[in-house]
C-alpha cells in the first residue's frame, strides 16, 4: 500500500452494508421531507386565509435548502472520518471535481441561495424576469417556476439572477399595484372623465379600499393618456380587476362622450400600448 492509499484509508471510513443502509435512510428521509415540504406546505397554504398563504409559501425554498444541508451533514460523517484535515481535503477535492463538471449547475444553486437570502423572489410573488411574467409557484435548487397568466409554466434558472433584472410586483405582500391605461381623443371634459374614472376604481368589487387610488392624465401628441392606479384585494385577481376597470371605464366614456383614440392597423404610426399594464407596487 503506497502513501496516498494509506492517506485515503485514513480519510474514508470502511463502508460496510450498515453504512450503506444509513446513507440510504438519510437520502430517503431527506427525499420524503422534501416531498412533504414541496407538496404539503402549498396544500396547507391554499386552505389558509389569504394573508396566511403569503406567510407560508416563502418558507418552502428555505426549508428545502435546510433539508439538503442537513442530509449532507448527516451523510458526510458516515463516509469520512470527520476531522478538520479530512474535511478540508475531501471538500477541496470534491469541490474541484464538481466545480468543473457541474459549473452551470452550481452557478444556479448559488444563485438560488442568493435569491433566498436577498428575497428576490418567493413563492406567491408576481415577478418579471426577462420576457416572462407570472406568479412564482416554486423555487427549486436549480430553477424557479413561474405560472404565467396564460397558465403556462416557465422554468427559469437561478443563474439569470446574475445578469437579468428581476421585477417583483408584490415582494411578499398580498397585493400589488395595477395600472389601467386609457387613451382618449383630446376633445373631452377632462374633469368629468377623471371623476368618472375615480368612481370606476372605487366601485370595482375587486378594489382594495385601504390602499390609495390615483388617476393620472397627460396630454400626448395622439390624445390624452389616463392611468388608473389602484390595488386589487389580492394579487391573484389583478387581471379580473383590470378587466373590470376597463369595462366600467368604457361606460363612463360613453356617458361623458369621450371617445378612445384608435391606432391605424397599418402604416407607420406606432400604436399605443394595450390597455391594462402592470406596475410595481
Amino acid at each position: 500500500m503506497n502513501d496516498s492509499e494509506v492517506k485515503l484509508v485514513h480519510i474514508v471510513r470502511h463502508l460496510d452494508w450498515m453504512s450503506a443502509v444509513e446513507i440510504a435512510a438519510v437520502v430517503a428521509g431527506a427525499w420524503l421531507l422534501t416531498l412533504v415540504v414541496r407538496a404539503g406546505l402549498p396544500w396547507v397554504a391554499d386552505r389558509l386565509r389569504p394573508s396566511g398563504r403569503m406567510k407560508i409559501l416563502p418558507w418552502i425554498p428555505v426549508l428545502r435548502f435546510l433539508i439538503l444541508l442537513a442530509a449532507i451533514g448527516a451523510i458526510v460523517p458516515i463516509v469520512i472520518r470527520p476531522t478538520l484535515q479530512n474535511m478540508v481535503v475531501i471538500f477541496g477535492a470534491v469541490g474541484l471535481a464538481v466545480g468543473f463538471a457541474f459549473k452551470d449547475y452550481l452557478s444556479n444553486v448559488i444563485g438560488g441561495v442568493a435569491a433566498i437570502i436577498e428575497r428576490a423572489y418567493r413563492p406567491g410573488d408576481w415577478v418579471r424576469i426577462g420576457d416572462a411574467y407570472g406568479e412564482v409557484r416554486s423555487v427549486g435548487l436549480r430553477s424557479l417556476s413561474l405560472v404565467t397568466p396564460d397558465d403556462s409554466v416557465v422554468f427559469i434558472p437561478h443563474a439569470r439572477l446574475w445578469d437579468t433584472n428581476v421585477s417583483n410586483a408584490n415582494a411578499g405582500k398580498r397585493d400589488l399595484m395595477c395600472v389601467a391605461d386609457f387613451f382618449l381623443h383630446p376633445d373631452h371634459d377632462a374633469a368629468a372623465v377623471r371623476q368618472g374614472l375615480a368612481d370606476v376604481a372605487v366601485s370595482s368589487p375587486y378594489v382594495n379600499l385601504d390602499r390609495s387610488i390615483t388617476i393620472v392624465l397627460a396630454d400626448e401628441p395622439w390624445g390624452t393618456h389616463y392611468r388608473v392606479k389602484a390595488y386589487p384585494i389580492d394579487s391573484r385577481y389583478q387581471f379580473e380587476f383590470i378587466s373590470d376597470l376597463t369595462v366600467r371605464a368604457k361606460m363612463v366614456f360613453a356617458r361623458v362622450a369621450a371617445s378612445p383614440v384608435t391606432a391605424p392597423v397599418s402604416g407607420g404610426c406606432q400604436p399605443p400600448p394595450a390597455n391594462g399594464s402592470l406596475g410595481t407596487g
Partner: protein
Amino acid sequence: MNRPDSRSDTTEAPLWHMVPLADYQRPARPAADAVRSGFFGLFRGERQRTPAGQLVAEEELRQPSVDLLNMLAGWPDWRDPIPALEQTLSDIASSDAGPHRIRTVVGAPYSGTRETVRLWAEQRQWPVVAPPTPERILAQDESWLDAIAGDDGPPLVIAELEHCMLRHPFGLAFLRRLLDRLRASPRPCLIATNSWTWAYLTATMGLGDGMATPVTLQAFDADRLARWFGQLVGCDGPVLFRQANDGAHVLSSASKAGADPADTQRLDKRSSFVARLAGYSRGIAGLAWGIWRQSLEAALGEEVALGQAEDEAAAEQRVIWVRPWSQIHHRALPADADLDALLVLHALLIHGGLAAGALTTVLAALGARAPAVLRSLAAHGIVEEHQGRWQVTPLGYPAAREAIESEGLMVDGL
C-alpha cells in the same frame, strides 16, 4: 302578558340607547370562543362541533311551533328604541343651518335602526323619502332629486340611504348629487344608513364630511340581551329557560316574572349561553334574536302546559330548554364558496339587499355566474329573497361577515 315596559324601569340602564359611532362597544367574545374561532378560523370551510352531554334526552325535545316561539321570543317591537332616538336627535327639527342640520344614524344589519327611524318619522309625521329604483339611479334621474328637494318643511327623512345608491360609477355620481343637494339645502335632514354602506361611502367619498357626528344604537351586552329576551316572553306566569345539557339557567326571567325569591339563589348559576350569543352576534339585536329563537326547544307536553291557563302548580313545569351553545348549528358558507360568492355577499351587504338585476349590474364581472352563486348561497341559508331583494339572512350574517373579512374585503365597523 308579563311584558314589562322598558321605559318604566328606572333602576336598570335602559335597554336601548344611542351613542356616537366612535363609542360603539361590541360585547367581548368569551375567551374560549375567541380561541376556538381563531384556530378554526385559520382554515376555510365548515367544521364539525362535538356534541356535549345531554340532561334532557334528545328525543324528548321538539322544535317549538311558530305560535309557541312567538310566545317565548316574540317579534321585536322596533318602537322600543324610539325614546333613545328622540333623546339624541330631539333638536333636529330646530337645527339651524350648519353641520348639525344633517344627522346620520348608522345601524348594523338587523339592528332595527332602519325600522326605528321610519317609525319615529311616521310618529312625527315627517316625510320619509321613498328610494329610487335602480333604473332611475343609473339614469341619474333628476326628477327624483327635484321631487325630494325643497328648502322648507319638516325634516326630510331618508330611512334607507343604502337603497339610494349603487356601487357603480353612475350610482356614485347619483349619490353625490343627492348629497350635494342635501348639503346645499337649509332643510334639516335625517339619514339612516346601513353600517356597510356607511363604511363604504366614508372610505370612497367622505360621506361624513359636513355632517354631524353619526350615532348608532349601542350594542347589546349579555346582561341587556338577557333582559331583552325576558321582555319578549309573551305568556302569563314564569317561564324558565334552562340549558338542555346541564340544566343551568340561561335567563333570570323567572325572577322578573315574580317567581319565588328562593329561586333567585338557584338562578345565580347562569349558563354562559347569552354571553356567547352576545359575542357571536356582535351585540346586534336582530341577529341575537334570530339565533335565540333557533336555540329554543320544548319538551314533550310543554307546549300544552304553556298554552294552558294560569295554573300556579304548573309553573314549575314551565321550562323551555335551550340548546347548548356548542350544539347550535351555525350556518356556514358552502365549502366551495369562492371569491364570486364573497363578492355577491359583499355587494348585498353594502346595498342592504339587491334585486337580481341590480346585482348583475353592480357585479358585471360575474356576468351570468351571479344567479348560480345566489342559488348556492340560498341553499345554505346564507341569503334569501325578500320582497324582490336578495339579502343576507340574519343567521347567515356572522359567517358571511367572517368570510368577507378573511378575504381582505372592506367590512363595516360595527
